[in-house]
């Protein structure tokens, strides 16, 4: 019960405010009055709007036949019509005396102007001026309001009042953008020479939208003879320059090439970009050196534009620059554009490299090919199937489906032979074309050949070649061109021959120096030791087959032409490979062979075999698993004198480089776990991990882990100490002023709560709050200001009392100490004498020591008292709550409503 009461006593501040009924009635009446005013005004305004609308509608109905009469009046009409026309004129003149009617008629004419064309429109424009409506528009130009001026200009422009040109032209540099823009359009619309005046005089920015609108005006002008816009390329207003460039491009004025080239160096990127566009449009080839010059100083957009222009205008000489850009530039778009530009100059110079799949020869395909080639042997010479220089590989799925469909080997072979013979013919043609193109010094010799070679074998019979046709042009460039009438001094090169036919290799070929890079297959690599699995991609390193001299002339031509292109390639290392029997009937020629410069050769991993750590080791020379050895054996080439590229060293490899190669460290399970844990702790932990680390240290046996733990403990300890010290120093250095908790609260609460809070300041505040209350004395709200003033007074009193009390307490304590000292001394001196309190005070007087004012100084109660447990008298607890405590200070809603009127009046009075 007591607790409940004390609770109520503590929360008396949130009691509902007392309502003053007198004010309530006043407010009710005020609100009723306001509602009435509101309703009446809505009614009045609505009626006015609807009546105006009705009036407008009626007047429009009245005016429209008149307008029609005026528009379609012709002089050669009957007398009655003429008199009717004169009557109408008089009627209209009467109507136009009223300003509203004039406005309405203007609106009508403006509306009609949009809907009619031809001679009716011309008559309508004339009527506008005849009726003198343009005078109103002129009057608007003198207004101080920008929207009225803009409306006036717009009206004069719409109704094409040419006489307004000189009046409007003075607004061309108006600082109000709407007026200025309207004037710009008016100037360009009203007279053909307006564009010249505008470009000459405008000092302001011409926005993109404005440029479009102006261009639209110019575009729709009938019989417009555009001026030479190059005259404004020298303007000091860069927006004029930009607009002039756009107009030059639009009107195809290609007589400003030098200026365009000069503008490539302009500071403004947009102008540079527009100049580049013009250069591209007008094929200004002389701009190419400057384009290259400014390229590296430009942003990405301009770079792309420059590359596009070089691609369009450039020649072979510019490809070097483009290649350099493609190599150096980091930005993807620029790089791509550079490559695109190269291809624009020399088509298909740069081939696609991304996402190109490498098709592998599957066993089933191999069987099909095998059977095909066996059939090929029986074919007549000259019709021998010939695939392109690159391999003929077969798409797995289609081929598979063909096999599954039950196509016999003979069918397949027939299909393939037909297709391949076609390919051969095509290739032959292609290469002839290539020869011709090479001889005439044109670019892209083999590009032509590639275009002639059917890129794929038709899938009609279930077979599809995915060979891209010829390989890169440089790969076969070393062979001279051979014509059918000119027997080749070089051995013929049969790509499609089976190995059985490839026995007659010439001795010259065999004596060629061969430079092999030795590789060794990893042990455990599959499977068939005698016939390892080799994919066409895996033997890129192998040189081409050279052999049969008895090949058809066409083949010779093809190969010779191809190889002749590669003669210039000094890095090429040819290798004669004579193959009597291929892998499962394949010749090496059956695989995709790529001639690569020795120094350009790709990473060794490309070969497809796993390499050992020391690829140059020769210790496994005789290993039968070695693919190369196996291939040589299979093709009876093991007798060929092979020159290995060896790295000869005096010392073993380990001795030479061992000191440079770090020892590998392998962790066991525990070590891995511990190192991971320590990594995590190091990354995310702090001094709180020290106990854990100490535990780990105690349990750990490995020295290197122990070392790391110790290091971490030291690190964390150092960090913690440093942090603590720093924090302490920081706080000390700050020497922060006392901060009032009320100040913070005060910011985030409403007015009512503020006033309540101020009441609480007296109860719980101390000297820290004085400064805060001091600040509130300048608060804009008078209520809060007054309240703060009162509270400040009370608080100062309270603080003064507390200070006094503290002083008293201090004195009491001193007195107590003195008495204790006195008692002790007296007891020591005269233990039998017992001093009373009066005697003690008398003594103090004698000694001129001031005793404590508190009579109960010796009965100090140090027991702390719980506020909630405090016992209050019944009178206090039954005391009625004063409701005005809140409402009085003006925090209630009704009080604020009451104050609203006064505040409103205050605002009105400034």
């Amino acid at each position, binding site marked *: 019960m007591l607790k409940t009461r004390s609770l109520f006593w503590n929360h008396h501040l949130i009691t509902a405010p007392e309502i003053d009924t007198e004010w309530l009635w006043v407010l009710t009446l005020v609100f009723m009055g306001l509602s009435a005013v509101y309703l009446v005004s809505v009614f009045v305004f609505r009626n006015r709007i609807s009546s105006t609308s009705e009036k407008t509608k009626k007047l*429009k*109905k009245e005016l*429209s*036949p008149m*307008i*029609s*009469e005026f*528009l*379609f009046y012709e002089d050669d009409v009957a007398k009655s019509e003429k008199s009717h026309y004169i009557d109408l004129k008089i009627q209209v003149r009467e109507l136009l005396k009223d300003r509203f009617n004039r406005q309405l008629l203007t609106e*009508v004419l403006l*509306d*009609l102007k*949009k*809907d*009619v*064309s*031809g*001679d*009716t*429109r011309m008559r309508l424009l004339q009527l506008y001026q005849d009726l003198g409506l343009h005078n109103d528009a002129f009057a608007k130009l003198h207004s101080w309001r920008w929207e009225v001026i803009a409306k006036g200009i717009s009206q004069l422009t719409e109704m094409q009042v040419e006489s307004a040109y000189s009046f409007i032209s003075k607004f061309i540099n108006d600082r109000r953008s709407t007026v200025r823009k309207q004037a710009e359009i008016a100037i360009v619309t009203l007279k053909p020479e307006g564009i010249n005046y505008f470009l000459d005089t405008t000092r302001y920015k011409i926005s993109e939208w404005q440029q479009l609108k102006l261009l639209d005006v110019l575009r729709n002008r009938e019989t417009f003879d555009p001026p030479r816009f190059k005259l404004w390329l020298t303007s000091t207003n860069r927006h004029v320059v930009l607009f002039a460039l756009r107009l030059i491009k639009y009107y195809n004025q290609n007589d400003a090439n030098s200026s365009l080239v000069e503008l490539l160096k302009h500071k403004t990127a947009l102008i540079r970009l527009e100049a580049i566009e013009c250069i591209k449009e007008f094929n200004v080839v002389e701009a190419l050196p400057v384009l290259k010059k400014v390229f590296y100083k430009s942003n990405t957009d301009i770079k792309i534009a420059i590359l596009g222009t070089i691609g369009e205008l450039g020649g072979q000489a510019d490809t070097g620059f483009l290649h350099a850009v493609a190599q150096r530039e980091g930005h993807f778009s620029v790089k791509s554009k550079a490559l695109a530009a190269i291809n624009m100059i020399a088509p298909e110079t740069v081939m696609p490299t991304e996402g190109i799949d490498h098709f592998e020869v599957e066993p089933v395909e191999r069987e099909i090919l095998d059977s095909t080639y066996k059939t090929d042997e029986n074919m007549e010479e000259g019709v021998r199937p010939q695939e392109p220089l690159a391999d003929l590989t077969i798409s797995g799925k289609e081929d598979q489906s063909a096999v599954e469909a039950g196509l016999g080997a003979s069918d397949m072979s027939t299909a393939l032979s037909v297709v391949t013979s076609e390919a051969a013919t095509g290739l032959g043609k292609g290469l002839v074309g290539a020869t011709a193109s090479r001889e005439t010094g044109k670019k892209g010799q083999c590009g032509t050949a590639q275009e002639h070679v059917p890129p794929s074998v038709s899938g009609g019979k279930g077979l599809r070649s995915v060979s891209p046709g010829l390989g890169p042009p440089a790969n076969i460039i070393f062979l001279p061109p051979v014509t059918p009438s000119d027997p080749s001094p070089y051995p013929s090169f049969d790509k499609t021959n089976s190995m059985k036919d490839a026995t007659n290799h010439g001795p010259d070929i065999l004596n060629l120096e061969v430079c092999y890079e030795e590789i060794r297959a990893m042990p455990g690599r599959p499977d068939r030791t005698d016939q390892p699995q080799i994919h066409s991609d895996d033997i890129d390193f192998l040189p081409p087959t050279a052999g049969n001299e008895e090949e058809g002339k066409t083949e010779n031509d093809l190969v010779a032409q191809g190889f002749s292109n590669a003669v210039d390639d000094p890095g090429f290392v040819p290798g004669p490979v004579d193959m009597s029997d291929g892998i499962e009937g394949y010749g090496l020629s059956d695989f995709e062979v790529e001639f690569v410069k020795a120094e350009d050769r790709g990473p060794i991993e490309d070969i497809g075999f796993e390499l050992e750590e020391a690829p140059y080791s020769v210790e496994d020379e005789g290993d039968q698993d070695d693919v190369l050895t196996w291939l040589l054996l299979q093709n009876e080439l093991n007798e060929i004198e092979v020159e290995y590229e060896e790295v000869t060293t005096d010392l073993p490899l380990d001795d030479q480089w061992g000191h440079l190669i770090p020892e590998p460290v392998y962790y066991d399970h525990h070590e891995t776990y511990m190192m991971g844990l320590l990594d995590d702790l190091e990354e995310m932990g702090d001094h709180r991990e020290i106990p854990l680390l100490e535990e780990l240290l105690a349990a750990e046996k490995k020295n290197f882990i122990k070392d790391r733990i110790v290091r971490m403990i030291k690190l964390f300890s150092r960090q913690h100490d440093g942090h603590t010290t720093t924090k302490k120093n920081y706080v000390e250095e700050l020497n922060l002023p006392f901060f009032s908790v009320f100040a913070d609260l005060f910011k985030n609460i409403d007015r009512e709560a503020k006033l309540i809070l101020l009441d609480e300041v007296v109860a719980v505040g101390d000297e820290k709050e004085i400064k805060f209350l001091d600040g509130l004395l300048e608060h804009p709200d008078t209520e809060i200001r007054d309240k703060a003033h009162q509270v400040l007074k009370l608080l100062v009193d309270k603080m003064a009392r507390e200070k006094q009390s503290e002083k008293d307490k201090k004195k009491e304590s001193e007195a107590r100490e003195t008495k204790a000292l006195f008692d002790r001394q007296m007891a020591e001196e005269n233990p039998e004498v017992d001093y009373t309190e009066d005697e003690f005070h008398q003594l103090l007087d004698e000694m001129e020591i001031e005793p404590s004012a508190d009579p109960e100084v010796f009965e100090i109660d140090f027991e702390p008292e719980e506020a909630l447990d405090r016992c209050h008298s019944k009178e206090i607890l039954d005391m009625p709550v004063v409701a005005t405590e809140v409402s009085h200070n003006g925090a209630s809603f009704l009080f604020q409503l009451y104050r609203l009127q006064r505040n409103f009046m205050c605002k009105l009075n400034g």
Partner: protein
Amino acid sequence: MVRKKLLLAEDDELLASLLNFRLNKGGYEVIHSSNGKQVKEFLGQTMPDIIVSDIMMPYFSGIELIGYVRNELKSAVPIIIISSAGNEENVLNAFELGANDFISKPVSPSELLVRVARELNKN
């Protein structure tokens, strides 16, 4: 001389008034309707010699009007449609449904007069 009846379906009062005046002066008896409903009502009673209709009209568009005349009334009365520029799709629809001619806004009343005369001469 009997004047040809021309139904002008146009919701813009000003333009309608202007065209009405011009066509009237050109020798036609013009019946003006400002919305599709009125047009439908009128067509239920009499069939004009020619219809000049705007495509965009309240309640009953010009396209619907063509459909109504051709499919429901089974009439071959010439229909000239008025359409805003850039409304080619509607114009094509109108031709598919059986419109005879079209004229785009802004309209030249003189041109309209010529087109009306031509359509009537065709028939």
